[in-house]
């Protein structure tokens, strides 16, 4: 039965050689790629401020031509004139800051990026292969790049638009991390506390030792099988989401046998995230809980597209079922870039981002043979940071070591790079691992590094 559903939540699917046929790309404020029957054929560009839902401002036959024309349009809107290059040289402040009702848009050069370099990145992301029927190759649905708080590049394909919410899959886990940060700030929970204090189903001599921190750093010791292909019949995550666990995913997870002493072994477990969400439901109560993500997180950030699905008992499926547009996902990333502060208001407690973006303690000390390739696990975030003392290198050498990411099945990513003041969101439907996250990120980062300081 191998491969019926493929592996679910592995952030780094196996890789195949790049089979890309270049479709088309642009590095403008907005790029709209329309998907034909097979691949992306027509690419149109909107200048900043153009009606996103209307007809494209420019239908690009050639990339450079479209860039120039769109730049000219931008000049007109700004009351400036001249070529695109001249408009760039007259750019004002590169700092856009927190977004209001929407992101402030800038040409990449205006925000201190190298537009040509960025073109390379965008063309990589918007490359598509095969047909819809094949579901093969790079299948980007959307991307958004935020630099210095300005939206510098954006693109959509395969029928998605800037207004289409996209399933975040396991990026939802990082949203769960934020909700816990807020609960900690409000004094509702402490991460060092035994989870059984809030969730009696976890009472017991061994499982009673599981703390919220163990759950956040995926080292509860509760038995879990995340992979589907290895043991389809016994996959815990499939059972949780689709069969015996779906009515109450937290209880399903809490009832798993204890496999390791709590805090000793890191094991990727979607169950622990839903257990955290179930615990939060107990803490907040039935009145407050259903409103909490909106009142405390999505509304303050202006994430109007947010959808958070629940299990049969009303617990948010924190492991898998959050949805938002890439622009709203970028808001979430920007909150972490700003260390938990939004427009001067602290949403996540001081130190929370640092706390959540350290390598899981149990991962550092566990048997290296049991570790996974790709970025290192933090507290419901993935990290590019090395740790020489435990033999962990830099996962993506072309990306700064301080980069951290929310990652989701089938190619979802929100990547935050504090040292470059950069947030990169990418949604997709990669079924075969052709798309290489490290390559995409390195290409975007190259566009930042090669530009002169703003």
């Amino acid at each position: 039965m191998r491969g019926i559903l493929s592996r679910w939540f592995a952030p780094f699917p196996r890789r195949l050689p790049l089979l890309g046929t270049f479709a088309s790309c642009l590095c403008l404020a907005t790029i709209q790629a329309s998907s034909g029957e097979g691949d992306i054929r027509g690419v149109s560009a909107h200048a900043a401020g153009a009606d996103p839902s209307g007809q494209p401002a420019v239908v690009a036959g050639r990339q450079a031509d479209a860039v120039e024309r769109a730049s000219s349009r931008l000049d007109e809107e700004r009351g400036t004139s001249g070529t695109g290059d001249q408009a760039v040289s007259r750019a004002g402040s590169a700092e856009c800051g927190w977004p209001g009702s929407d992101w402030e848009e800038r040409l990449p050069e205006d925000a201190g990026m190298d537009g040509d370099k960025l073109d390379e990145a965008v063309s990589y992301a918007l490359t598509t292969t095969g047909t819809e029927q094949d579901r093969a190759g790079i299948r980007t649905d959307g991307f958004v790049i935020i630099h210095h708080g300005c939206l510098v590049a954006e693109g959509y394909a395969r029928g998605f638009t800037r207004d289409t919410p996209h399933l975040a899959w396991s990026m939802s886990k990082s949203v769960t991390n934020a909700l816990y940060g807020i609960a900690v700030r409000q004094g509702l929970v402490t991460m060092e506390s035994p989870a059984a204090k809030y969730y009696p189903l976890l009472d017991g001599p061994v499982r009673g030792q599981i703390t919220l921190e163990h759950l956040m750093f995926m080292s509860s010791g509760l038995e879990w099988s995340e992979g589907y292909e290895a043991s389809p019949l016994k996959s815990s995550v499939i059972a949780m989401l689709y069969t015996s666990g779906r009515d109450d995913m937290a209880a399903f997870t809490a009832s798993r046998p204890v496999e390791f002493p709590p805090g000793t072994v890191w094991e990727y477990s979607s169950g622990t995230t839903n257990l955290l969400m179930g615990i939060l439901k107990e803490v907040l109560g039935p009145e407050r809980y259903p409103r909490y993500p909106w009142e405390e997180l999505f509304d303050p950030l202006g994430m109007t597209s947010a959808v958070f699905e629940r299990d049969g008992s009303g617990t948010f499926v924190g492991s898998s079922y959050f949805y938002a547009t890439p622009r709203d996902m970028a808001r979430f990333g920007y909150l972490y870039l700003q260390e938990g502060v939004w427009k001067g208001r602290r949403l996540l407690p001081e130190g929370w981002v640092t706390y959540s973006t350290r390598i899981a303690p149990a991962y550092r000390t566990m048997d290296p043979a049991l570790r996974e390739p790709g970025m290192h696990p933090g507290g419901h975030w993935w990290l590019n940071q090395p740790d020489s003392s435990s033999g962990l290198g830099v996962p993506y050498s072309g990306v700064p070591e301080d980069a951290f990411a929310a990652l989701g099945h089938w190619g979802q990513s929100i990547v935050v790079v504090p040292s470059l003041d950069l947030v990169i969101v990418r949604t997709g439907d990669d079924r075969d691992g052709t798309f290489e996250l490290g390559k995409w990120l390195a290409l975007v980062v190259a566009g930042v590094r090669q530009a002169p300081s703003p």
Partner: protein
Amino acid sequence: MTWKRAVLGLFGLAAIALLAWAAVNRQHLEHFPSIISSFYAKQMCSCLFVVGLSEERCHNESRQYVPISGCEIDWENKAVTVRGLGRTNRAHYVNDRFGCVLDELD
């Protein structure tokens, strides 16, 4: 006919082993066939009513290697019922915040 007895014996042992395995994995086996229709129903519901893609496109996103035998979309009540591997499962749209959820397990 010693060899016949040996073969029968081997078959018998294999059958016992299979039954023992099935007994141990009873719960897994019981729920396993529901995966196909549950996954399809949930994906289809969310694709149509949360993401808002076309029906044809959503079928393509939801399909698995094991085909389903039927899919019924209730546009009025925003629900999707799918039959596959002998089980029927349904997912329905709740509202614009909570998206879709699976009904009781078949």
